[in-house]
């Protein structure tokens, strides 16, 4: 009797632990996206609206753009939603994705200590980078193949600075997401390039402030692509396409406008219906 009771007890315990994941039968897609869309809080605001409308749950794996595209290449996501147009076009050319749609943009800003010891503040991104390099002022780089990292490297090049030649202890390559890079900059009063969305939602700012903004070159375009079902047959084409269609529809675009932090709009929709 005792033994029976004990076995029943362990069985009950095991079934509680091993119990099935909640709502397993709800339709869902996996989206590989960037840390900026996740950490800025956009997805938290946007995705429930899509799920409510279609009943499709969206699971977001947030990585740097380079890694997110790799997850798509391996077929571990149905949709990729990233921000590095050059890398996205390579992705398409390889046949890893089906079609690219512009969704929205925001902009990059150069953040730095309020006192601005390098004298970088202004509107010109390349001038600011030259000032920082001249002063050898601490600069934090994402160093993680993300869209922001790719943009940063492009700006150094545009500024005519050969990073390989000038980089020293002042250039800190942290190899992490936007948040950790901001934390590092905040702790060491360093300069860095950030997307505006993550900066606005970032809470541990310390002595940092926006120093450079408004340069046309700081434009940051986001694009969305379905992973190629011809390469990965398990891709949920119907649900994934529904998500893409919704993002670029007037309704989805309107909801992107609706996401604000302290009254400030973070992302600006610019999808062109029917055009890639």
């Amino acid at each position, binding site marked *: 009797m005792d033994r029976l009771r004990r076995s029943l007890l362990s069985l009950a315990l*095991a079934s509680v*632990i*091993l*119990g099935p*994941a909640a709502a397993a039968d709800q339709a869902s897609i*996996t989206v590989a996206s960037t*840390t900026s869309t*996740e*950490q800025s809080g956009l*997805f*938290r605001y946007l995705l429930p609206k899509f799920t409510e409308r279609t009943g499709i749950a969206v*699971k*977001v*794996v*947030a990585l740097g753009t380079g890694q997110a595209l790799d997850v798509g290449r*391996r*077929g*571990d996501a149905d949709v990729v939603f990233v921000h590095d147009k050059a890398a996205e076009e390579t992705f398409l050319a390889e046949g890893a994705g089906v079609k690219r749609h512009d969704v929205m943009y925001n902009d990059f800003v150069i953040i730095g200590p309020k006192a601005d010891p390098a004298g970088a503040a202004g509107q010109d991104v390349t001038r600011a980078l030259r000032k920082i390099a001249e002063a050898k002022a601490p600069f934090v780089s994402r160093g993680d193949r993300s869209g922001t990292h790719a943009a940063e490297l492009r700006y150094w090049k545009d500024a005519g600075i050969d990073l390989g030649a000038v980089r020293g202890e002042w250039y800190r390559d942290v190899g*992490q*997401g*936007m*948040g*950790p890079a*901001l*934390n590092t900059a*905040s702790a060491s009063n360093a300069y860095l390039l950030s997307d505006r969305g993550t900066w606005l*939602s*970032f*809470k*541990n*700012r310390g002595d940092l402030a926006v120093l450079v903004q408004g340069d046309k070159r700081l434009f940051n375009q986001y694009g969305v692509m379905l992973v190629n079902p011809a390469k*990965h047959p*398990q891709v949920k084409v119907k649900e994934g396409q529904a998500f893409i269609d919704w993002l670029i529809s007037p309704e989805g675009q309107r909801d992107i406008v609706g996401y604000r932090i302290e009254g400030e709009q973070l992302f600006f929709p610019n999808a062109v219906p029917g055009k890639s």
Partner: protein
Amino acid sequence: MLDTLADSVARLARLDHEVLAIAWLSLRVSLTAVLIGAVAGVPLGALVAVVRFPGRQVLVGLLNASMGLPPVIVGLVIYLLLSRSGPLGPFGLLFTPSAMVTAQAVLVTPLIAALTRQIVADAEAHLGDQLRSLRLSPWRRAGLLVFDVRFSLVTAILAAFGRAISEIGAVLVVGGNIDGFTRTLTTAISLETQKGDLALALALGLVLMGLVLVVNAAATVLRAYAVRAYG
């Protein structure tokens, strides 16, 4: 620092449904992994302690060394196995709680086996001659010794649980830290730290430590009760 701590405690007071769901997932994943680890690791450890075979010392060394398996490496290997492009891809387990259970089970099984081997070997030093004189099979001897040390094994299991619930390397890589689906306490703490919300991160850390404390206390009470009832 003090301000942050005070803020954290205030946030804890407002513990919402979401935090509870995250804590419950952490608990479920790690307990399941430990259950699997115990089912596989205890017999393995006990047999290695009891049976004499060539290369046994090497195996013991490997078992002990594998207590230090780096979680992020285990995560990476499981990731490559479960990826759609990997050998187990067709099951579609990547970025699910099952993937996290798998990775943590791989982490804790050698830990439980190594600790069990040590505990059973110590018991065998006392009882081994008697058992061998009864001409029992190795399975039978291992079984009897495990039964004899069952209360000491609780500590081994708790060590495994502690390792599982506090690791982040493996669950982050194979789970993907998906909001509402594979976000655990450790990945949530990391995310909030990244977002610069140190107060919330610290609050979640307190929840994690509280959880470990509760599980350990429960095990201690159960063990005391069991010792009295069946010891």
